[in-house]
């Protein structure tokens, strides 16, 4: 039975064994759910309401392009899990589906341009026959002006409203902002590191395997990219093209691949003269198999450790930018909240503890996952730790 298991499937199965991984996956899963369903979990508008006999769902009416494609991608991924396909095909189908969803969402979804949260607390909505509110009835950018929120209230300090994690300096609910910030933290970590990893593995692998001229040119390219100061490049781009999360992801990704390339190059240089690689060449195996089946898995351990730090680093980069006031203007992010905790004249523990704890947990989870993945790829280690 095990014989039918593909290489990727075996790695995946072994990664999932162990307690640390369950904790990490649990936390990351929670973040994914929060990120995908954020508008349904924390919003000022009712999920569903009935007024004068007509049903309406303001949340759905106000969903923007990102909300829609994220939901589509999520359900597409869940569907793919239940379709029996090989691991590689699932990944390809998922990526294709996601790109299609993004394209469709941006061409079809036309949300209302202006959202005034105060309206949802006006007579039009409060006098409905019945209505279902989200679990946290505050949107992340709802500053509760009509309710005369003073801002920076400690958790559960106010008697008329429930703010489980307090409010921030503008008066918005911190819990709501925490949930919506999952999107930025998850996506910037994954996409920026993903871009960096992809470029790094390809460039580093080619340099290491072919060596000679390819290696020399590649190393010069690596050195050039190492010399680019990411922060100042970001500043320049923000000045010219305005603030955009996607631009940030791409810039962080494109400037941070050099480290991965160096790791991969070293491993490939070391491994390409190994006897089993020579045997693979002598057997006439295709180049992709030699590079990605015989060399890469044996040299992936340092890469995974670097990756887990890379994801964490990207999350922290975004936090740094927000701290400097260069982050995305209105969208909430954990780094920006930490920034508020530092900047205000009094120490507001809830502004530091919740986003700080979330960043810690996320970085920790990626590290655990990276370690489990590394162990799974090394059969010897898996056997020794009783994993089998």
């Amino acid at each position, binding site marked *: 039975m*095990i*014989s039918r298991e593909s*290489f990727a499937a075996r790695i995946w199965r072994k990664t999932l064994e162990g307690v640390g991984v369950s904790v990490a996956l649990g936390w990351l899963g929670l973040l994914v759910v929060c990120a995908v369903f954020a508008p349904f979990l924390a919003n000022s508008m009712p999920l569903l309401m009935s007024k004068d006999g007509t049903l309406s769902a303001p949340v759905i009416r106000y969903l923007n392009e990102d909300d829609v494609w994220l939901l589509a991608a999520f359900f597409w991924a869940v569907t793919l899990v239940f379709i029996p396909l090989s691991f590689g095909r699932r990944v390809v189908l998922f990526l294709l589906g996601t790109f299609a969803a993004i394209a469709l969402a941006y061409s079809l979804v036309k949300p209302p341009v202006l959202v005034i949260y105060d309206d949802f607390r006006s007579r039009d909505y409060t006098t409905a026959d019945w209505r279902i509110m989200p679990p946290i009835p505050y949107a992340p950018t709802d500053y509760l002006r009509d309710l005369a929120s003073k801002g920076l209230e400690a958790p559960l300090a106010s008697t008329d409203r429930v703010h489980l994690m307090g409010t921030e300096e503008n008066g918005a609910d911190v819990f709501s902002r925490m949930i919506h910030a999952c999107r930025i933290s998850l996506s910037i970590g994954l996409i920026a590191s993903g871009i960096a990893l992809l470029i790094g593995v390809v460039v580093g692998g080619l340099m290491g395997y072919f060596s000679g001229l390819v290696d020399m040119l590649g190393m010069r390219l690596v050195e050039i990219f190492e010399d680019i100061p990411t922060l100042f490049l970001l500043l320049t781009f923000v000045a010219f093209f305005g603030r955009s999360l996607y631009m940030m992801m791409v810039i962080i990704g494109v400037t941070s691949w050099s480290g991965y390339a160096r790791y991969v190059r070293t491993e490939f240089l070391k491994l390409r003269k*190994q*006897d*089993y*690689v*020579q*045997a*693979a*060449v*002598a*057997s*006439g*195996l*295709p*180049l992709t*198999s030699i590079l990605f*089946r*015989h060399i890469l*898995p*044996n040299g992936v351990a340092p890469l995974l450790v670097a990756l887990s730090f890379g994801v964490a680093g990207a999350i922290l980069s975004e936090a740094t930018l927000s701290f400097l006031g260069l982050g995305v203007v209105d969208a909430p992010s954990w780094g920006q909240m930490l920034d508020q905790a530092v900047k205000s004249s009094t120490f507001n523990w809830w502004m530091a503890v919740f986003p700080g704890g979330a960043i810690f947990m996320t970085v920790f989870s990626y590290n655990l996952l990276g370690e489990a993945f590394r162990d799974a*790829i*090394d*059969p*010897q280690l898996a*056997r020794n730790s009783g994993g089998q």
Partner: protein
Amino acid sequence: MTAPLLEVRNLCTYLQSGKQHVKAVDGISFSIPKGDTFCLVGESGSGKSISALSVIGLLPSGIASHPHGEILFNGEDLLKLDDMQIRAVRGAKIAMIFQEPMTSLNPVMTIGAQITEALYIHHPEMGADEAQARTIKALEQVQIPDAASRFRNYPHQLSGGQRQRVMIAMALACEPQLLIADEPTTALDVTVQAEILRLIKQLQHDTGMSVLFITHDFGVVAQMAQWVGVMQRGRLVEVGACQTVLQQPQHAYTQQLLAALPENLAKPPVLSNPTQPSTPLLEIQHLKVWFPIKKGVLRRTVDYVRAVDDVSLTINQGEIVALVGESGCGKTTLGRAVLQLEKPTSGSIQLQGHELVGLSERELKPWRKQMQIAFQDPQSSLNPRLLVATTLTEPMKAHGIGHNHDERIELAARLLDSVQLDRDFLWRYPHEFSGGQRQRIGLARALALNPEFIVCDEITSALDVSVQAEILQLLLNIRQQRNLTLLFITHNIGVVEYLSDRTVVMYQGKIVEAGLTAQVCGAPEHAYTQKLLAAVPRLHRLSLGA
């Protein structure tokens, strides 16, 4: 008869690993008279090195314990001494040299400084001039040419043989009564080994010290020892005078070890018939593999390392050709160049009349099927991340052998049958196997594409002698069944004589002698071949010779 210098009585050394006790040495007794050499011989893991380390007290005390036994050195039990007392014995009265000369010297100290340091520790009263003079004398004693100027050399400026000489000089500087030599020549070429062995014998003659010599090579035993002890799984199964043990072994294990030596193996019944017309399978003409040496800012090529320099060789269908030479002579590079794993600088390689040099990887693919390679190091010859099944079926898939996965798995299982391994081994990873089993899997992989021709690059060098015998017999079997042609690269003359039809001797990138094995090994013509053959330690020196 005088009292023995060293007497080991019922010595036990237990090593602790986790919660388990490993009985590494389990009750051995032997004694070494003054001025004599005692050889401990056995296969890897038999406990011979642990015994030696116990004698000199170099085992970490947290891990090793000696529940029984005593080690009497000049009548004093070394096991009862405390750390300070044993330090006075170690180095001064008992010295040790190790197997790997490349790693046993400190690379950032001059060799002179390393030897004088040992002198200062054991003779604190000694002045700097005297220490230097004694160091130079010790270096002269081990026949290092121009010892006074070598004093300030760093280890990397010396060759492997010279480093081992420096190690011996360091051991001898304090004039010990007992020298423990732990496989001191295993990492060296045979000609260098012969020099080092001769040196140790001569020093022993001059100084009257005793030697505890550890080796796995019976040829070395025959040359060095007065007394020999055969170890198996922590026990001394046979102890006695060297000639008696080697010629009339009493214990079954000793008999088995001696029988497994290539020179004692029964020759297979059918060797290739020289009268039978043979067609050339592989023709190598004027092959050169040169590696450029680049210097300066512009990386200009200033010179070449001529690894293979104008080699011509024809290998006939069904033949076993042995390629012999010392390390660095270019034999491995030649083997790899034949398979186009190393691109030749110039020359021609023709397989069944088709030129291989200059073909692209795509054009080579059909020829890859015809020729395969098996490697020396069982640790690195198999991809540790892949199941044996994957390792064996992947090349088949790439060449379209077998219609589907199940069929290829069945073929792979049959391959394991043919190398005498269990079919269940398909579903295991390489680290679960012993060295010999891995070499069999490596052979199975080379056979997977059903090739005409296999390059065997020192496939038995890393193996124990009994495992080596099994692999050699297996190789001959497979060759009979499939009419294989082999290029067998080795430095072991015994293996050459047992296995090959023809022998080719390489020296500094060139072929110096080629011919039928009996001829080359029996009546060598070239001076280098004669030197090489004379250096080989033989079990029965008299039975051979021109």
